[in-house]
Each structure stands twice: as C-alpha cells, then as structure tokens.
C-alpha cells in the first residue's frame, strides 16, 4: 500500500471510530460535543501506561476502561442537561481536559508527549472493523431498541419499563470508551500527541459526521465519516491534478454548501431507516406491502 493511501485509510478509520463514539449517545437523543475530551484522555492515558512499561495491547484497553470510568462519573451531572445545554456541558468538559493536560508536566504539558509503541494499519483497520460490527450488533439488541425509543420519546419509553437514566449512561459511557480507543490508536500510529490536535473543531466535525450521516441506523456514522473524510480530500486531489488549484483552495466552500443543503433538504441525515429497509428488500420484500408503501414514509 502506498504511503499516501495508507495515511488516508488511517484518517478514515480513526474518524469512523470517533463517529461511532458520538453516534451511541446521539442514537439515544444526546448531543455530545465533547469528543475531543474523550479522545485526549484515550490518547494520553494509553501513551502513559505504555511508557510505564505495559505493552500497547494492554495500554489501549486500560485507557478505554479509564475513560469509561470518567465518562460514567460525569454522565450523571451531564445527562441532567438536554439539547443545547448538553452540547455546552460536554464542550466544557473537553476544554477542562485540554486545560488540565496542558498543565501536567509529566504528560509533556504544552510541548506534547511522545508515544512509544507503534500501531500501523494492520492494527487500526481490523480494530475499526470490529468497532463497526460491534455497533451494528449493539443497535440490534434490547439496549439498542431502548436507546432508539428514548430518542423518540423518553416519557413513553419509561412507561414500558425502560430505565432511561441507565440506558443513557450506558450509551454515553460506551461511546466514550470508543472515542478513547480512537484516541489511543491515533497516539500509537503517529507516536506523538499534543492537546492542540484534539480541539473543538475536531469535536464539531465528528458531531457533524454523525448528524449528517444520520442517527436512525448504525450505517449513519459509517457513511457520514467516510463521506466527509473522502470527499474533501478527493476534491483536493482532483483540483490539483486538473490544474484548477483554485478549486482546492476553495473546497471548504463547496463542503460548507453541501452541509447547508443537507440541513435544508435532509435533516434526518444521509442514511435513513426507510432507505436501509428498502435496500434490504430490493424486490418488494417477502412480506406483502412492506417495501412499496415504505416509500411514503
């Protein structure tokens, strides 16, 4: 594999993992703008454990557990907030994490922190595939059903015995563990981390991948992250190759326009439930009336 393709593949994989970390809470109706915070915790804790002598394959799961424990603890106050207030609370959390690390000398403070063990694409790609499969599986379980029902109507979910608080905390915590995994892999791949990399822009992009990809099915974050990783880069390549450098310079304008158009014409995201159902039953489906009438949804 060429160096360029490999580097793009790694970026894609990391974005997909981050996106699933935000998707899990989003599927149960929570907007989490704290991705950078969890990614930072994952990257630094795995790097530190690794530096303390533990091999990478122990450091990464340990960092996930550590991050999950933090997420579980802060989930209770944070999940008391909703909507834009939750966005603000999670954003504030990420800022606190960044502020903390930049002042911790043993983690390199503002100078950044070197990471020992290296993870190449032979580690990153299989792990990403596992994450995707895990999330698809999770959404098909009882917890997945509960999360989607909470997304629709929290009060009614309670009426059927769903422990709303527990399901939300579980989604938030599992999501944080995935982002920690992504952050740890980032560190071990590039072998150097600094807090400035994991800034609010990253949190915004990841939340955008998920919202624009769609939160109704587990396909959403995969398609969203892939689309918004590959398309801007492809635009840049095409522009450079065809000699129209101005396209490359202004590609974020096209990108912005796509996002605005999406918000207007497809607020539920690129991939919707109906779309997946239709794709699964291309010839009208086994059950009478299922596929044709789905078009009216």
């Amino acid at each position: 594999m060429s160096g360029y393709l490999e580097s793009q593949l790694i970026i894609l994989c990391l974005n997909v993992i981050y996106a699933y970390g935000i998707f899990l809470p989003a599927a149960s109706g929570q907007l989490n703008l704290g991705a950078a915070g969890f990614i930072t915790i994952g990257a630094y804790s795995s790097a530190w454990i690794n530096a303390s002598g533990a091999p990478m394959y122990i450091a990464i799961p340990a960092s996930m557990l550590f991050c999950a424990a933090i997420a579980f603890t802060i989930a209770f106050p944070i999940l008391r907030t909703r909507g834009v207030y939750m966005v603000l609370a999670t954003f504030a959390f990420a800022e606190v994490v960044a502020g903390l690390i930049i002042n911790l000398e043993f983690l390199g403070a503002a100078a950044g922190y070197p990471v020992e063990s290296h993870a190449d694409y032979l580690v990153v790609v299989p792990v990403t595939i596992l994450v995707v499969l895990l999330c698809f599986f999770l959404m098909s379980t009882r917890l997945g059903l509960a999360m989607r029902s909470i997304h629709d109507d929290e009060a009614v979910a309670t009426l059927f015995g769903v422990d709303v608080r527990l399901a939300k905390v579980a989604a938030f915590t599992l999501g944080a563990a995935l982002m920690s995994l992504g952050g740890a892999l980032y560190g071990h791949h590039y072998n150097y981390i600094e807090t400035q990399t994991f800034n609010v822009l990253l949190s915004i992009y990841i939340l955008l991948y998920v919202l624009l990809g769609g939160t109704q099915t587990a396909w959403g974050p995969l398609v969203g992250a892939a689309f918004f990783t590959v398309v801007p880069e492809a635009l840049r390549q095409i522009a450079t190759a065809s000699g129209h450098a101005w396209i490359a310079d202004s590609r974020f304008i096209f990108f912005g326009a796509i996002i605005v158009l999406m918000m207007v014409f497809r607020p539920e995201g690129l991939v919707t439930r109906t779309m997946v159902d239709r794709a699964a039953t291309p010839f009208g489906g086994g059950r009478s009336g299922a596929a044709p009438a789905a078009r009216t949804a």
Partner: protein
Amino acid sequence: MLLEVEGLDVRYGRNHAIRALDLELAEGEIVTVLGANGAGKSSLLKAVQGTVKPAAGAVRLNGETVTGWSSPKRVRAGLTLVPEGRQIFVSLTVHENLQMGAYSRSDNVEREIDDIYQRFPNLAARRDMLASVLSGGEQQMLAISRALLARPRIMMLDEPSLGLSPILVQSLFDLIGDLNRDGLTILLVEQNTHMALQTAHRGYVLELGATVLSGTAEELLADDRLEEAYLGGN
C-alpha cells in the same frame, strides 16, 4: 381490591392538581374517570403509574403499597398506561413498537405479537414500516396493542378517543369492552362521557382534583350533576 388509591395529593409547585382523592378498582372492572380539562385525570394516572410523585396518599396494587416504587417496577407488577395522544415511537417500525411493549418481560413474545396481528390485520400489513405512516386509528390500535404486550393486570387509558372519528371511537370502545370480557381490568380516563359510561361499570367524576360524584355507570348517566361538573359548577 386490585387497585386502591387513598388520600392521593398531587401538586405541581403551588398548583394543587389532585386533592385527597380515593379510588378503587376491582379485578375485572372497567372504571372510568371523567371530568373537564384540568380536573386532574391525567395526573391521577401518572401518579398511579409512578411518573409523578404524589405529595401525600397511597397507591396499593393487590394490597401492596407501591407508592415508593419506580415506574419500571410498576410496569413489571402489571400497571400499564396508554398515554394521551397515543405517543407511539415514530422512528421505530410497527413490529419494534410492539417489541417495546414487551420490554419489561424476559419471555418470548413473538406468539403474542402474532395474536395481535390476527386481531389487527392492518398492523400486520405494516409490520416493517415506520409507525409514523399509520393513520390515527391505526396508531391507537398500535398503542393499545403495545400496552397489551406488557401483559398488564390493569390497563390505564388516557383519553384514547381523542382525535378519532366517530366510527373509530365506536370500534375503540368495542375493543375496550372485548379486552375487558377477556379478563383485563381497565381504568379509563375520558372526556367522551357518554361513550365511557356505556362501556364502564362504574365511574368517578373529578372537579379541580377532587371527586364530586361517583357511582355505577347507570347512576351517573341518570345524574344531572354530571353535566354541572363539566359546565363549571364552581
């Protein structure tokens, strides 16, 4: 008594929604709670279901005090509420909505879901569609079917006839009667006084959170004070 409500008080801040309310429901009965908007009917159901904490009073299920129980625990004990405005899960399929009804159960419910489909062929035809495509009447059938799958001992219905056409209202009350004959105990909150009293065995009339009238359905239908409760006798 299967359900006893004793001295129930519900307050929202300074607003006193229910005052010292007593209510009884025997196994196999349909009891209706009537009253104008703001009489406290929905608050009563929420307090019984456990989504609203009462300021005072007790709720007993089969003699056991459940006042301190969480809502999920009450669902498992057999108290199921069909909320006002149906409130189906619009981004879940019809089938998933039914599965949600059985969320609190650990046994296999697919056979019971098949029974539901036998009873409501319209739901069967749309089992894999998003519930948002259903008509108002179908949504009400789905909401009631979903509640049935929780295997309730008492089904509480909050204004189920709201927003339905007269023909659908008739078939809804027929269904409520059928379910009762199959052995289901029902607590029915309604604004449609006439239909509710034709279906129910007994009724309570609430005004400003307190019972102003109660008795058998026949007694209430014959009582002039029933109208007063609606026309604001205060």
